[in-house]
């Protein structure tokens, strides 16, 4: 019941005083990527001391562990630049360095927090590879403290900054930071240390925890079942939802939705209501449970139908972003081995597995293609694509529309060759993470500007816009040459549709807005009898609904028609 707490993450930044910038980056990106995380900011090697019991000298807790807000960012901003340095000098000053004391102080911060933290991390920002300049007692103290912290589950990262003669980690910090994370016995190859440059990129994207969307049984038939976790590796990111606030106090309000009886005003409980649809002039009523039951075909899971060669997977059979599955050894032991064997064999034979997929209870089935994907590493030996099956959704007959193809003349070899030159000039290496969503980026910057009282939001670079100037330069005379080959001299590809629109506009020029036509009861009855309501436009139908005082929730045409049909039958009955 208390799951929200378990997901609280905690990150603790320790920032050396001349490196406030990086701290600021961590704040702003943290705020957007995972706004529930707690972050503290601690400076060490300061003149002044400020910590909970003031028991540590030269350690300044600038921000206590808290979820970062606009105020924190503004505080950090104040420390930046020339002026900021002066302010920092004034408030904290610079003094003796003792990393051990600082670490000790941090461990106190952690223990003072009442919440259960799922993840604790400490980042050390520094440019000095030998902070205690040979004082071995202090080195030892720092090592012990670091070991204590690590024992309590804190991951210590070093965010070292470039130093002219190079930062030598082996001098001291190799003993402080946590060893590369070894995720379980499965032997994960990861590089936990995120580089500072990554942090400085100011990523404005919501970060999501690696969590299975669901855990399902994958049945091969005859009782051969393995367990898999279903993961979402790509999903259209949307603006975070808005919160409603009370105007006077800016405090969040909750919404409550109730149903009540229109005549006696009594509250309607869920079982005082049923569901209905209208077909063939008849209202068909069902219980809520029945509506759910209709959608139930089988229990959730993946059921293997068979295999098909990869070329049978059509490019245009796409209806939803793909999912990803990975074995769940914890549910059915032996799953990983079975899964790996399938993966190897499918990829070797170049086939995909066709499965029936029911993601959860009371959900109708879909067919999916499980496409094998073997692990790929990039140059730095980190995982570029994970091993597992991609789950590609396949369309049913209803999902494929009949499109009347436009048949026209085809291009000659000469024309095609000219286009090839154009294509050649404009080729580039596509990367899936190369484009940012300009809508989201603008939104985040707007928020930032409002929260931090900035005059104007930071401008965005819209990467989705074609770089027209550059393209024109690269293409040079090619475009004109191509146009000469395919278009006659008097042809203007942009002109025509406009010309077509004109007569329509001038024809209807007199009628700016059609006067509202009231529909009489007789007319309505007539329409219903002849079934001609469908010929009217949606605005006319809406007007009619309003006129007869019918409350319409739907805006779909069919719903409007249904509402009017019911009304007409009632009128007839009277």
């Amino acid at each position, binding site marked *: 019941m208390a799951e929200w707490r378990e997901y609280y993450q905690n990150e603790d930044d320790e920032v050396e005083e001349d490196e406030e910038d990086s701290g600021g980056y961590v704040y702003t990106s943290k*705020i957007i990527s995972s706004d529930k995380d707690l972050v503290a900011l601690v400076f060490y090697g300061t003149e002044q001391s400020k910590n909970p019991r003031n028991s540590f000298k030269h350690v300044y807790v600038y921000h206590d562990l808290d979820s970062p807000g606009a105020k924190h960012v503004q505080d950090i901003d104040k420390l930046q630049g020339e002026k900021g340095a002066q302010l920092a000098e004034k408030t904290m000053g610079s003094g003796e360095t003792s990393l051990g004391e600082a670490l000790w102080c941090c461990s106190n911060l952690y223990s003072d927090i009442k919440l259960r933290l799922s993840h604790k991390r400490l980042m050390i920002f520094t440019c000095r590879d030998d902070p205690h300049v040979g004082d071995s007692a202090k080195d030892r103290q720092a090592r012990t403290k670091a070991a204590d912290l690590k024992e309590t589950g804190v991951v210590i990262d070093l965010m070292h900054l470039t130093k002219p003669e190079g930062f030598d980690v082996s001098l001291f910090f190799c003993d402080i930071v946590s060893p590369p994370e070894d995720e379980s016995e499965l032997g*994960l190859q990861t590089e936990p240390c995120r580089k500072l440059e990554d942090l400085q990129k100011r990523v404005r994207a919501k970060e999501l925890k690696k*969590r299975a*969307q669901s855990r399902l049984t994958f049945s091969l*038939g005859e009782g051969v079942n393995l367990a898999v976790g279903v993961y979402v*590796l*790509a*999903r*259209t990111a949307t603006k*975070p939802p808005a*919160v409603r606030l009370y105007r006077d106090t800016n*405090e969040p*309000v909750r919404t*409550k*939705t109730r149903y009540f009886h*229109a005549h006696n005003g009594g509250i309607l409980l*869920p*079982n005082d*209501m049923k569901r*209905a649809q209208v*077909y*063939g*002039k008849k*209202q068909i009523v069902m219980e809520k*449970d029945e509506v759910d039951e209709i*959608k139930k075909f089988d229990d959730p899971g993946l059921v*293997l*139908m*068979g*295999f098909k*060669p990869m070329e*049978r997977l059509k490019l*245009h059979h*796409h209806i939803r972003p793909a999912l990803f599955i990975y074995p769940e050894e914890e549910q059915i032991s032996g799953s*990983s081995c079975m899964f*790996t*064997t399938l993966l190897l064999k499918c990829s070797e034979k170049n086939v995909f597995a*066709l499965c029936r997929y029911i993601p959860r209870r009371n959900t109708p*089935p879909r067919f999916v293609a499980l496409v094998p994907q*073997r692990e790929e590493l990039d140059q730095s030996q980190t995982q570029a694509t994970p*091993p597992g099956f*991609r789950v590609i959704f396949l369309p049913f*007959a209803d999902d494929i*529309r009949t*499109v009347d193809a*436009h048949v*026209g003349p085809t291009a000659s070899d000469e024309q095609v060759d000219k*286009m090839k030159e154009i*294509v050649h000039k404009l*080729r*580039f290496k*596509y990367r*899936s*993470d190369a484009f940012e*969503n300009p809508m989201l980026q603008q939104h985040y910057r707007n928020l930032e500007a409002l929260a931090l009282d900035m005059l104007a939001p930071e401008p965005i670079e819209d990467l*989705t816009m074609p*770089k027209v100037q550059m393209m*024109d330069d690269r293409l040079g005379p090619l475009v004109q040459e191509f146009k000469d080959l395919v278009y006659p001299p008097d042809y203007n590809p942009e002109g025509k549709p406009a010309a077509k629109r004109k007569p329509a506009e001038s024809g209807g020029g007199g009628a700016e807005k059609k006067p509202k036509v009231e529909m009489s009861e007789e007319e309505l009855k007539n329409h219903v009898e002849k079934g001609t309501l469908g010929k009217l436009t949606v605005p006319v139908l809406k007007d009619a609904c309003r006129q007869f005082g019918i409350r319409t929730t*739907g805006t779909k045409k*069919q719903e409007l028609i249904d509402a009017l049909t019911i009304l007409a039958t009632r009128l007839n009955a009277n």
Partner: protein
Amino acid sequence: MARAAKSALVLCMDVGFSMSNSEPGQEPSFEQAKKVIQKFVQRQVFAENKDEVGLVLFGTDGTKNGLAEDGQYENITVHRRLMMPDFELLEEIESKLQPGGQQADWLDALVVCMDLLQEETMGKKFERLNIVLLTDLNVQTSADQLDVIIDSLKKARITLQFFLPFPVDGEDRADGGGDGPGPSAAPVRPGKGLSRQQTQGLEMVKNIMTSLEEEDGLEEVYTFSDALQKLSIFKRIDRRPMAWPCHLTIGSSLTIRIVGYKAVTEEKVKKSWAIVEAQSHQRDDVKRETVYCLDDDNETEVQKDDTIQGFRYGSDIVPFSKVDEDQMKYKSDGKCFSVLGFTKQELIRRHQFMGSQVVKVFAARDDEHAAVALSALIRALDSLKMAAIVRYAYDRRSNPQVGAAFPCIKEKYECLLYVQLPFMEDLRQFTFPVLENNKKFKPSESQLSAVDALIDSMMLVEKDEDGESVDVFKVNHIPNPQFQRLFQCLHHRGVNPDDPLPPVEPWLKRDLERPQAVSARCQTPLQDVKTKFPLKVVVKKKEQKTSADVFGSSADEPDAKKVKVDEETEFNLAEIAKGNITSVGSVNPVRDFCTLIRQKTVSFDQACQQLTHRIEQLLGNRSPEYYMKSIACIQAFRDQSVSSGNAELFNSYMQSLKRSVPDRNLQELWDLLIQDALTLISKDEVDGSTFSKQDANQFLAFEQKEEVQAAPVQEDTGDVDDLLDMM
């Protein structure tokens, strides 16, 4: 436009006495034909198109048609004139369509149908006129008018379809549109054993059909069982794709006029469920109200106009009004399809496709220059194995996308296929542990070969006699089972309002199963796999969550707690007597309720109603503290009901609460009620109660079983926002 195209169709069914005859163990032709008609009309009703349908019966005891005169055209009844089919027609077919005791000439009936069609379609525009004849042909016909009839059919451009109990040709009826996955129907009655009339009739049918349509005429003659199988599939929801005219641009000066169409997209059910009142079944009786309230104890309601929207920025919420948001938001400059560059197709991975659709892009219609220009692009991309990366915006109001346009060259046409690609924000870079080189999971040679054999045995693509590979399980030929099931249930409920829902149709179930041939083939390899791979379900150590775990040691101290509540009530009474309590508040509803009853400021019914309202409110929060409060309320409700001798309100509330337990996930609350033995008020306590002591005790009992079933399901809730997204 073709959109308005509709057809007029007359169903003409033989109900004569021979239709009711059948060989032992076989369904009479009448019943089969009736089913065909039912399915047919049902499809029409749910497809909600503008087609009009009429129904003519022949062999009826009575006569009712426009041509009946002087003993001619007798025993033919026009049951329904041309109209859009509705449930009334379905109900009539269900209840009123009975076998008749007469026989009538099917050629005469055909003439009546033609007359009906011509008369009713006068002055209206129909794309197609069609007559469907269902008969066993077992009647004497006069063939002398045959040529005249064929002539006028041709003239009026009326098409014909025959549905017979037996195939036209005994031998070759297997061919035809047999590409469906299902096995072909079991042979109907063999071509032998036909009566003289039937043989003669069959000849006439052949004669008519071949003279109407020279070659394919006989394809329009079906058997009942074939037809039933085909008709049981509800019509595809047919949507005309909307044309999206735009310009494809490369740089600033190369423009090609194009038109896009949605070619593949997930079709949703056309209608949504409306909420109606349970008794009256009236939609207008249910009012929905959304209120905004502050997060304080009183849940102070505020007006919607007094709220503004904000967004979380870290721990702060930044007020950001809709107006400001609109003003500051990203603005795109209208529809576009602009090439950003070209890239190798292999760099675009299939699993990175985003969005919910595939758009086919053609050159503008009747613009041959655009066609040539686009063709040059398509062919260039195809031969270079490249694709265009484009910025796509549907219109001024929609957000831009980045997507890929792939070349697609078909025998008959060429086009670009556009698919959306991800933005950086859409991707989640999760890493997963290594599988292949992990010693623990390394498969042995024998395991590898077992899976190899399994894959070979389960290939869904087979070679036919000509060496062509045939796909035996084409998903894109399967109708969406969700729609099929929905319409089946709607139809059933529409015709039989009081029946429970029917089971899933067998053919639909079969469509979703592994093809039988494949199942048979993979038996041995699967057994082999089963023995070579040890797969064991891990028994969870996690115990079932009981209410005691959730609420601490409440099981040990229910008594103490109850006392506390009572004390509090008593203690406060004196103080309350001074203050004037007029309604049941949310802070201390029990106290308010008891006071109201005692002071009789409002009627007992009203006080109870106010209290149940508060309970509902509390239950809406679904958290332990509120549960305790709700229980206290229910306890007070019960106590007061017993002491005022009115059991009805309490009992009916409890029953409705119980019904809503699974829906609202209130099992935990229910367990607490069990602990406190808060059950219905029995006869022993209040005279007016309709429940015996035993009833009351059982009332709480059975729910425990359900909890065990329901509990494991809650575990796989997973990513909550993912779930919501997918709903």
